[in-house]
C-alpha cells in the first residue's frame, strides 16, 4: 500500500545518505533499518508519533548519537568521530529545547555562536546584523534573552543555526509550544530559507506544518519508515480523495455499522466512537447513501492527518 519510494530522489547531490540505520537502547530498538536520502535543496519532513524514532534519527545525522548499524553519510562524509568536526561545521542545528545564552544579548548570542565555528569577528558581526533582520529582532538587538517571547526565542534559535552558512538545516520540532501566530512567523522564515534553496530536514508533530513546508515526507512508526512521498502523493496513495467521518452516540454500537459498511468500495477506519470511510474517485455513492441513511456524518477532503492516523494507528503513544 504505502511502500517507501527512494527511487525518486536524484542520484547526485545527496546531503544525507543513510542505509540500514539502526540504534538500540538496551533491549529497545529505537531505529530499525532506516534508509533515507536528502538531496540538496530539498525540504524533507520526518513525521511520527512519540517514540517513532524521529529524534533518534536526527541525533545520528547530527553526530550526537553513534549508530549501532548501517551506513550514514552527511554532507558527503561518513559519520564517524574523526569527521564530526567537519560535518558539524556544515550543519545548522535547531534542537527541540531552546538553548540560547540567557545572560547574553540577542546580538552576542549570534556573534559568540559564530566564534565556535571559527568565523572571524568582523564577519560574525556582519552576519549577526543580517540574521537579526532575518529573525525580525532588530528592536531587540541588545535585549537579554530572558525578556524575549517564546516565538522570538525560536526565531533567534533559527537565526543562530545559520551563522555558519550551513549546507543543511536540521530542525527538531521547530514550532512545538508556540502559539499559532508565532508558529506562522517561524514557518514564514523557514519558507523564505527554502526559497533560497536551503536544504532542510525537519521533524514535526504538526501535519499542517509538514504539508506547508515539506517537499517530501518520511513517516516513521516503531523505529521504521512506513511511508515516503510528497504530501499530495501520500494522501492519494494512503487515503484517497475524501473522508467521511461518522460520530457514534453512546448507545450506538460502532461494530454494527462497521459490519454493515463492510465490502463497499471504500476503506473503513474505526477508532473509539468514530468511524472513518476513505473514498476514492467518488465511487460507491449510491451504496453509501443507503448505508448512511438517517445518520449524521461529515464529509471532507482527505488530509495528511488521515494518512498519519491510518499508518500509525489511533492508539495513544506515551
Amino acid at each position, binding site marked *: 500500500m504505502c511502500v517507501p519510494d527512494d527511487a525518486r530522489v536524484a542520484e547526485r547531490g545527496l546531503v544525507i545518505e543513510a542505509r540500514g540505520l539502526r540504534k538500540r537502547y538496551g533491549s529497545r530498538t529505537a531505529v530499525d533499518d532506516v534508509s533515507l536520502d536528502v538531496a540538496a535543496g530539498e525540504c524533507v519532513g520526518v513525521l511520527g508519533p512519540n517514540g517513532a524514532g524521529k529524534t533518534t534519527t536526527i541525533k545520528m545525522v547530527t553526530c550526537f548519537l553513534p549508530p549501532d548499524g548501517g551506513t550514514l553519510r552527511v554532507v558527503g562524509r561518513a559519520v564517524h568521530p574523526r569527521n564530526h568536526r567537519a560535518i558539524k561545521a556544515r*550543519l545548522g542545528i535547531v534542537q527541540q529545547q531552546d538553548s540560547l545564552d540567557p*545572560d*547574553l544579548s540577542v546580538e552576542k548570542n549570534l556573534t*559568540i555562536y559564530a566564534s565556535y*565555528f571559527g568565523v572571524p569577528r568582523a564577519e560574525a558581526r556582519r552576519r549577526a546584523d543580517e540574521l537579526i533582520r532575518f529573525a525580525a529582532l532588530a528592536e531587540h538587538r541588545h535585549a537579554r534573552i530572558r525578556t524575549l517571547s517564546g516565538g522570538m526565542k525560536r526565531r533567534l534559535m533559527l537565526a543562530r543555526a545559520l551563522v555558519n552558512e550551513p549546507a543543511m538545516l536540521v530542525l527538531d520540532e521547530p514550532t512545538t509550544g508556540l502559539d499559532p501566530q508565532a508558529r506562522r512567523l517561524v514557518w514564514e522564515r523557514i519558507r523564505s530559507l527554502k526559497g533560497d534553496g536551503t536544504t532542510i530536514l525537519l521533524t514535526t508533530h504538526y501535519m499542517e506544518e509538514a504539508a506547508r513546508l515539506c517537499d517530501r515526507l518520511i513517516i516513521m512508526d516503531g523505529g521504521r519508515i512506513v511511508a515516503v512521498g510528497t504530501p499530495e502523493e501520500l494522501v492519494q496513495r494512503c487515503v484517497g480523495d475524501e473522508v467521511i467521518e461518522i460520530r457514534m452516540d453512546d448507545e450506538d454500537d460502532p461494530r454494527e455499522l462497521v459490519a454493515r459498511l463492510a465490502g463497499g468500495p471504500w476503506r473503513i477506519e474505526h477508532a473509539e466512537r468514530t468511524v472513518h470511510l476513505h473514498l476514492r474517485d467518488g465511487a460507491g455513492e449510491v451504496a453509501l447513501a443507503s448505508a448512511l441513511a438517517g445518520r449524521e456524518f461529515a464529509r471532507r477532503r482527505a488530509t495528511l492527518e488521515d494518512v498519519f492516523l491510518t499508518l500509525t494507528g489511533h492508539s495513544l503513544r506515551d
Partner: protein
Amino acid sequence: MWPGQGMLRIWWRDFQSWKRYAPAFVVSAIGGPIFYLVAIGYGVGRFVTDMGGMPYAEFLAPGLVAAAAMNSASFEATYGSFTRMTEQETYRAILATPCSVADIVAADALWSATKSVLAVAFVLAITGALGLVRSPLAVALLPVAFLVGLAFGTLGLVVTALASSYNSFEYYFTLGISSMFVFSGVFFPLDGMPGWAQALAWFLPLTHAVNLCRALAAGAPSLALLGDVAWLAGMTVGAFLLAERLVRRRLLQ
C-alpha cells in the same frame, strides 16, 4: 580552527555571561575569607601565641587563600557547569558546532581556574593591606591559585557529570569540600598530627594547595613544593580525562 581555539571561545562566552554578576562574586570571594580571618585569626588568635612559628592570623591567611581558590572553582564547576549542562542546554548548543566535549570541559575548568585567580587576587589585596603577607613571593600565589582552580575545577566537573540534580552537590560540598577545609592544614599545622592522619591528609588536594600557599606567603619556598605542584597537576589531568569521558557519555549517547 587550531587546537584550543574552541576552548578559548567557550571560556570567553563564560566570561561574557558572568560579567554582570561580578559584584556578587567579589562580595562572596572577599566576604568568606575575611570573616574567618577576623573571627578565627584575630578572635581565636588572641589565645594562641604562636602557630607554626608565627602569629596565628599570619599562619591562617595563606590557608584561607588556598581555600578561596578551592571554593571559587568548586562552585563554578558544579552549580555553574551543571546549569549550563542541564537547564540552559548550553553544552548541547555548543556540541552542535565543531567544538567537542573536550573543548567544553577544558573551557569550564579554565573558567573555574580564572575565578580562583580573581578570588585570590582580592583576598591577597586585603590580607596584604592587613600586613599578613610579608614576602613579595606572595605574587606567586596567583599562578598557584590557577593550578588549584584547575584541580578543583576538573574535580567539580567529574561530580557535575555524575550529578542527577543540584541536590547531589550537597554530598560533595559537605563530605568533600567542607571536610577538606578543616582537615587540610588551613587552621592548624599537620606536622603534629599522628602519622595516619598525615597520610590521610596527603590524599586531599587542599593539603597540597595549603602547603604551596603557606610556603610562598612566608617567602620560604623549597624543592618539596614541586611535589605538591606535581600532585595537583596529576590530579587535574586525571580528573579532566574522567570528566570528559563522563560528560561525553551523558550528552552523546
